[in-house]
């Protein structure tokens, strides 16, 4: 990981990276972290580590744009819009019980219309095979096990792999997966990185990826005594 403070000038080949600077996040009245910074080069992956509740999921939600940050900025370094797609996978799978696997994937591919998929059917077919979903492609999602559902959700992420510098934000992607499926995910992740895609992954389990970086959120945590936002401590009645 290149700490932003020590980064050299951005080389032109790195113009499509992703950065985050001075980021602070307040959730449920607590300052989860502050002055958080990192920089991703195209093709790199960042693992977020830390105990439950430290703010991994919140960081991913801030980066995805759901949660406004209290301070700081994050974003793509690319001046070109077409290279700046964000794909997010949270704890929930986002599957409808009465739709089949194929219908689900078709729907989400259509909805992500801006992605420049040059061969959507081929992509989908390959991703289905990667995760071993081809046999159950016509099965409604309510008949799937937890592991199968997670694989469908990952397949949906995998379909979004065609753009140059898409950023994947994944929150515990390998929950409920067995070793074989985790291998499949590692392969899809590697393919994504080869094309210049980046990923930020919060995980408790071990995901093998070459040349990865780790970010320990706890490093950026503020102690409650110094936290001006702590549950409205700004409403200090003694001041």
């Amino acid at each position: 990981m290149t700490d932003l403070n020590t980064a050299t000038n951005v080389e032109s080949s790195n113009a499509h990276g992703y950065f985050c600077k001075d980021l602070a996040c307040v959730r449920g009245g607590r300052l989860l972290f502050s002055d958080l910074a990192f920089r991703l080069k195209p093709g790199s992956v960042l693992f977020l580590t830390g105990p439950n509740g430290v703010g991994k999921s919140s960081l991913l939600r801030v980066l995805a744009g759901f949660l406004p940050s209290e301070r700081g900025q994050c974003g793509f370094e690319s001046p070109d819009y077409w290279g700046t797609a964000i794909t997010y996978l949270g704890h929930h799978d986002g599957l409808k019980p009465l739709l089949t696997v194929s219908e689900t994937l078709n729907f989400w591919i259509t909805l992500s219309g801006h992605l420049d998929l040059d061969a959507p059917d081929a992509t989908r077919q390959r991703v289905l095979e990667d995760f071993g979903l081809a046999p159950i492609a016509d099965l409604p999602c309510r008949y799937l096990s937890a592991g199968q559902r997670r694989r469908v959700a990952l397949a949906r992420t995998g379909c979004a792999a065609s753009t140059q510098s898409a950023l994947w934000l994944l929150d515990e992607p390998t929950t409920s997966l067995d070793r074989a499926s985790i291998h499949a995910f590692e392969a899809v992740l590697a393919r994504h990185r080869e094309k210049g895609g980046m990923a930020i992954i919060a995980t408790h389990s071990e995901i093998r990826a070459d040349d990865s970086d780790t970010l320990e959120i706890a490093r950026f945590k503020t102690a409650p005594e110094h936290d001006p936002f702590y549950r409205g401590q700004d409403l200090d009645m003694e001041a």
Partner: protein
Amino acid sequence: MNRFVALTAHDVRLSLRHGADSLMVIGFFVLTVTLFPFAIGNNPALLTQIAPGLVWVTALLAAMLALDRLFLADFEDGSLDLLVLTDMPLELIVLAKALAHWLVTGLPLIICAPLLAFILNMEAAGFGALVMALALGTPTLTLIGTIGAALALGARRAGVLVSLLVLPLYIPVLIFGVAMVDAAISGFDIIAHASALGGFFLAALALAPIGAAAALRQATR
């Protein structure tokens, strides 16, 4: 445009596969309306007098039935997050879902209405105006409903809360809708009422998605 159609089709497909939404709304509508002749007893003249109001109030309540689930399923299973992240404008997403909701609940209401007006002994002159008024009014009800559903997303007792938020805004639609049918029965011109209903629809079409989208963004934090 393609994505708008895809989202609407997706929601309609889901509702049809569940089957419950449409049937529940129509079932409620029919059952409630058929209760009134029993309650009012052998008094067809009274029924005729209040028929337009009855049909409208019941249609209103039926329309509210399925509202709290407009966004709830997507919110709970994580699909709403994914929808917000596609770069389709959230207002357009709200419109697509509203359209799907209306196709599945409002349209059946409009189709059933003449039958129910007949059960309530409504005068024949009012049938056409009733259908037209409902056709103009039910989309407005759905659109206003999206605001309530989005605001109350994830709340305790969301169903009651949505009704509380949305009913006051329904009152003008109700007033003009019933007045339109009454005017037709009395032989007056209905163009003024139709224009008012149309005006409400256009205002809701323009403003409701903005409010609902803002509420959805608060909900998905």
